[in-house]
């Protein structure tokens, strides 16, 4: 079995505190969750997956072209049926001939995706991303968001020593009806706890390691106290459980919680044994890892950009109707699809005659106006704002009305990306920032976000956010 070569984590910046929940509802049904991560209005599991994967790839010695398998896990894909891995492949600039796999349907999907990647012949990218929703009055309270990406291959920093499985039908523990946004649980407390604990205990016990030796354990964490309860029948210390628990700071990020917890544990591990124990849909899976690695993006777990409960309802779209009224932008899907190399990878053209740069690389050269065959290049993903405006609440074009209702005024800028191949300019939104604080001259970096949704199809592309 191969192991973890590199990894990345992405957690959205917004945090809703349980105190806010308590104020809003008179009670917080999120035991042991101090605050939870909230995806911004232009984020979803695809954009979080891209961000986590970019972080895993940025420090890795592995070329994108060398990736053989992409395996994704999420219970909340942006479309219940539609492109997910294929969008990841394009957004990340991976080869079109990668084998793809998508695991979904339950919170142990991350284990299935990891298993697929570990079994792969070659290098695998495994991404888990989730942002579950529930009935706002109670089930929703602990639900957070986040993503974790693993690059698996030979010569790993962290060896995966074993995986164990256990399946048993335990209906009603956690489920979502077909066509419903809201994850539910029947709340048969003792039955649910016993079912999960039994499955987790069996899966971990099947590993050919001594669980008592683990210095960290990321155990199915639907709230802050749950992992400790679930480890109760195992010889795993509370300190080890604490080392792998992140739900208290990011909330229950569905299929991504245990992977994020595992990466958090691995980054602090000292070549010791770490355990991940997944549960979902009646299936438990346990993974034994040994080693340590640095994980870009882990700092995001503790980042705090507090939002109010009203802002939470808006950002998540609980109170906004997403219909485009008055007509959307006249950019056909085939045209949009044809520009993905630009929208994701910033592919520009260099003029063989004058050396000027043109974006998008089509038509005559923007510098010398000659009709040439451009030499294509990827513009750098960090640049400078040349011009910026703030589109105030209510002022957006119709296809951006939903974004604006959810996220408020936004900054629209012209960004210069400068490299040896030339400088290109492109218009783009600046996201994850107070728009009033954005100025000409600011340094920004590219991030892939949902641009807008039209005729039911979300469209993704580049936005920029301030550099740290």
């Amino acid at each position, binding site marked *: 079995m191969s192991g973890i070569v590199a990894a990345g984590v992405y957690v959205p910046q917004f945090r809703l505190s349980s105190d806010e929940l308590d104020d809003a509802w008179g009670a917080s049904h999120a035991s042991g969750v101090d605050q939870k991560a909230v995806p911004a209005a232009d984020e979803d599991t695809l954009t979080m997956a891209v961000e986590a994967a970019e972080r895993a790839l940025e420090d890795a010695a592995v070329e994108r072209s060398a990736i053989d398998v992409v395996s994704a896990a999420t219970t909340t894909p942006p479309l219940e049926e539609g492109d997910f891995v294929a969008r990841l492949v394009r957004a990340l600039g991976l080869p079109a001939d990668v084998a793809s796999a998508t695991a979904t349907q339950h919170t142990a999907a991350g284990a299935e995706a990891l298993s697929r990647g570990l079994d792969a012949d070659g290098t695998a990218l495994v991404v888990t991303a989730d942002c579950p929703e529930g009935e706002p009055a109670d089930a929703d309270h602990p639900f957070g968001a986040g993503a974790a990406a693993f690059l698996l291959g030979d010569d790993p920093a962290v060896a995966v020593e074993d995986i164990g499985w256990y399946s048993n039908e335990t209906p009603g523990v956690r489920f979502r009806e077909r066509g419903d946004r809201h994850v539910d649980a029947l709340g048969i407390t003792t039955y649910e706890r016993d079912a999960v604990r039994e499955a987790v205990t069996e899966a971990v016990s099947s590993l050919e390691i001594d669980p008592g030796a683990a210095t960290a354990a990321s155990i199915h964490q639907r709230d802050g106290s749950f992992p400790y309860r679930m480890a109760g029948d195992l010889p795993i210390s509370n300190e080890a459980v604490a080392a792998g628990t992140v739900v208290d700071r990011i909330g229950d990020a569905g299929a991504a919680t245990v992977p994020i917890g595992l990466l958090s544990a691995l980054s602090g591990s000292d070549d010791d044994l770490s355990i991940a124990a997944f549960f979902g849909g009646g299936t438990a899976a346990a993974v034994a890892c040994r080693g340590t690695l640095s994980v870009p993006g882990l700092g995001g777990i503790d980042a705090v950009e507090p939002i109010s409960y009203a802002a939470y309802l808006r950002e998540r779209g609980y109170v906004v109707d997403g219909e485009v009224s008055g007509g959307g932008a006249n950019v056909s899907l085939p045209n949009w699809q044809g520009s993905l190399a630009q929208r994701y990878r910033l592919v520009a053209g260099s003029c063989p005659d004058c050396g000027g740069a043109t974006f998008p690389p089509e038509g005559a050269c923007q510098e010398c106006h000659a009709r040439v065959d451009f030499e294509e290049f990827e513009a750098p993903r960090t640049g400078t704002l040349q011009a910026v405006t703030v589109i105030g609440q209510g002022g957006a074009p119709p296809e951006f009305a939903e974004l604006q209702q959810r996220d408020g005024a936004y900054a629209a800028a012209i960004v210069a990306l400068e490299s040896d191949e030339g400088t290109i300019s492109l*218009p783009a939104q600046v996201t994850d920032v107070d728009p009033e604080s954005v100025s000409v001259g600011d340094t920004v970096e590219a991030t892939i976000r949902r641009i807008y949704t039209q005729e039911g199809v979300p469209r993704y592309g580049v936005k920029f956010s301030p550099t740290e």
Partner: protein
Amino acid sequence: MRDAYVLGAGQSSFGSFPDETYLSLFDDAFDAAMDSVDTAIDPEIIDEAFLGTLGVGGRQIGLSGPAVTEHVGLHGVPTTRVENACAASGYAFRQAVTAVRSGLVDVALAGGYEVMTDASSDHTRWWLGVSGETEWERTSGTTFAGVYAQMASAHMNEYDTTVEDLSRVAVKNHANGAQNPKAHLGFECSLEDAVSAPSVADPLNLYHCCPTTDGASAVLVASEDVAREHSDTPIRVAGCGASSGRVGLFQRGSLTSVPASTRAGEDAYEAAGIGPSDLDFAEVHDCFAIAELLAYEDLGFCDRGEAGRLLREGVTDPDGELPTNTSGGLKSKGHPIGATGTGQIVEAFDQLRGEAHVQVEDPKYGLTHNVGGSGGGVTVHIFEKEETGGSA
């Protein structure tokens, strides 16, 4: 190539007239243009028509030009509808001048029309975005005001232009428009009002943006013979300039100028054999306050970065060296997109004949500057009042 002259020019009232149609508004403009001719002409001498409109609202996407000419009784007259966004009728006028100069026709009608205020706000917002570059600019969430606001941000950053400078455009143009009974927003505003108005697209606020307007305008372009036969004060089209540019601001190389304006201006000056210092007045395309500042610099009224100073020193006030937008401009007179270009020529015609509401003293040369989108298409025209008595 023979000369072309403006024989007559007129406009409907500009404003919000949800009960009017593009046909009824053009009725008013056509009547006003015909009435402005010194010696009454028979409409039958009109050989051809070029009419500009963006077609906001989509009401008659196909063949609105012939619909208009037939409506006003120009039965059977060949009519071409011109679409170049906000420069549609500037280009329609250019076509009419070209037709007359070529000798193909003796009298051509140029004009424009737009109805913008009778649709829902969502529908209107959609239409206001159709002249920005669609695939990238629009999909970055910008609005029309947003693109000009980006230019303003870059200009302010590079040249220390201030919000007060932008606001002086509103103060000046509203003061002028308040004298114009056909202006859409014919009221005055103070500098304080203009500086403190609610933001539309930072750094542009409400007073830095023109209104959406309904209106129509019409200009009769004629050969020298016809002009001298019917006019006591023939107004010669002394110079025509026009140029295209990339539709998207980001594709243009400069964020602090409109290169197509510069090129169109240079061509017009060269054709007229004059320079900016010879102008007695100008009507420039002030759809947003920054656009008027850019026009000053692009058209050579001042050096780069000096436009704010021109406003501060009152150079473009009615009593300044180069009165600009004495009609009220797009800001106060209004901006019925397709009608704006020939609407500017109505003011030039009136000024040169001494009939303007804010009259410049005995002008000889006037300039009109009409911009499509944020600079994808520009026309500049220079008009000359010929000395009567001495010639012909």
